């Protein structure tokens, strides 16, 4: 069973990442990039440069490992699955920072610091949203959270949860309105001095993280593997693919404001909103 679940995690991540890149219409583009020269900057932090995309992929895989592929079956059957996912979110900030730090160049470094400033306050709504989802289940285990949605999905029970979590997903995957690390005004920021396979691998890691975060959103808000007729994993894949498409669509269409303004919005609007969401969810769960 463990082997099967491990295969499911890796297969979902791999095929999912290919699906994400295909949705962006960039399969051929990324394949071409792998064949190009990888540039060396002056005095880079080589270890962290090479590890950043690997960490990113590893965090996507670790995050996906707590997601149940069938009712009662997750690769990592942890009583605190939500906390493990939260750890992966927080470590993503470190990974993106190292990606911008390593090339030893100004624009990547600006992107790195910007991302930390934006992503830290995003972690707070994320925490409140996930805790709110754990309330009806009375457990931090994702298996229990899935079981708690047999009657009604959390997306209906906690309507603010998914929109707030969408912001978290866009931040974790450096997309659209939350892509402050690799923005156009700093020449693609943390990726500005990367070429060839290094650049392509970072894209692949971002795609894998989108799969992982969408699978978690499918589990927390749409009952994960629950569904009639079809087997559990198929339901999870359908829901994950739909969410991947939705997040990618939103990312392409919502404008990105300036970092300082986004910071104000995060602290002044979204943080109180997510706390309100938690309070309402708590009262309903009583």
């Amino acid at each position: 069973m463990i082997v099967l679940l491990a295969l499911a995690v890796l297969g979902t991540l791999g095929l999912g990442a290919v699906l994400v890149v295909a949705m962006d219409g960039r399969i051929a583009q990324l394949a071409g990039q792998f064949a190009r020269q990888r540039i060396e900057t002056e005095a880079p932090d080589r270890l962290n440069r090479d590890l950043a995309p690997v960490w990113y992929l590893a965090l996507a895989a670790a995050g996906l490992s707590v997601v149940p592929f069938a009712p009662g079956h997750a690769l990592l059957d942890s009583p605190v699955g939500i906390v493990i996912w939260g750890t992966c979110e927080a470590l993503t900030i470190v990974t993106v920072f190292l990606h911008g730090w390593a090339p030893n160049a100004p624009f990547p470094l600006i992107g790195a610091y910007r991302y930390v400033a934006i992503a830290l306050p995003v972690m707070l709504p994320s925490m409140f949203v996930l805790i709110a989802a754990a309330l009806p289940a009375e457990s931090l285990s994702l298996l229990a959270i899935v079981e708690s949605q047999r009657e009604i999905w959390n997306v209906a029970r906690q309507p603010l949860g998914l929109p707030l979590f969408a912001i978290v997903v866009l931040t974790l995957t450096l997309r659209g309105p939350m892509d402050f690390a690799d923005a156009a005004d700093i020449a693609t920021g943390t990726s500005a001095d990367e070429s060839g396979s290094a650049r392509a691998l970072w894209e692949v890691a971002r795609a894998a993280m989108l799969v992982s975060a969408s699978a978690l959103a499918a589990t927390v808000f749409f009952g994960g593997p629950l569904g009639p007729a079809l087997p559990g994993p198929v339901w999870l894949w359908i829901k994950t693919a739909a969410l991947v498409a939705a997040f990618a669509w939103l990312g392409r269409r919502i404008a990105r404001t300036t970092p300082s303004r986004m910071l104000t919005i995060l602290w002044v609007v979204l943080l109180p909103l997510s706390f309100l969401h938690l309070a309402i969810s708590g009262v309903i769960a009583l």
Partner: protein
Amino acid sequence: MGLSSPDPASVFAAIGPGWQAPVERLLARQGLRRALTPRDAGILLVAGDMPGTAAEALSRVHDQLPHPRVTLRWTIAEETADAVAERIAATWRDLRAGEADESDHLPDQPPNEWKGVGPHGQGGKGMMGGTPYGRTMAMTGEDIRDGLQLDRYTARIGPFAPMLPPGLVLEVTLQGDVIVAASVQSPPFAQPADADAPELCAARMLTLLGLDEPARRSIRGRRPSGFWVRGAVPRDLGRIKDAGNARDRLAAFLAGDSPAVAATDLSELLPGLEWSEAMLVLASFPPSSILRAAPIPEAA
């Protein structure tokens, strides 16, 4: 879109005097992609006759493209965009087949000699400051917002940086990404009135707002779609007497109008803004206004 999308030719544009509008229109075509950094490009498109002052910078940009790379020149106004697009497509095929490449123009070494002053050799105080290899290193200075001591880093950006108007070389001093001082080292290249076209002005702002596809649509003369487009530009950003703020100007561009802006001196306009705000403000001016705002520095 989809699985069958071919690999678009990735082009970094070095735009010379008079070629901003043709190049922006060219690179919005299907099958072409404008790279935001030379590291992401295979083809360097040199458009127009470059003044001698930009020659070294052009060589530097050339050497920043990863191998395999090819330089294409578009200098004859008679050559149509269709013809250039075809040349780019043919070159891109050669590049992908590994049948074309160019070696470095400049030797791979620092532009200036190592100074070798002081205990750490860079000529600054302690381990900070100084100008090893002719590039200034960060040194602490007063933060312009709260007066605390924060690293100041000075760099020259341009003349081919894609977020700046072509030709503009800015020397900026940054604390984090806040501009504390800016001076124009070299003014933007003069562009004829077609560079002020509202769909091009709108596209420059849309690109900075992360809306790549709507920006391309705008250049092709179609309605750009997106959520929170005007609202994403901070309300009080880049307010100019009689010409509203950056958000008003974006609204005007999107409505098909290109307002005349009497821009103020860039060295007064930019300090205090964060880098991303400054880029939005610059993009909210039609190129002719930027040219008036960046007077040619007096010859030394």
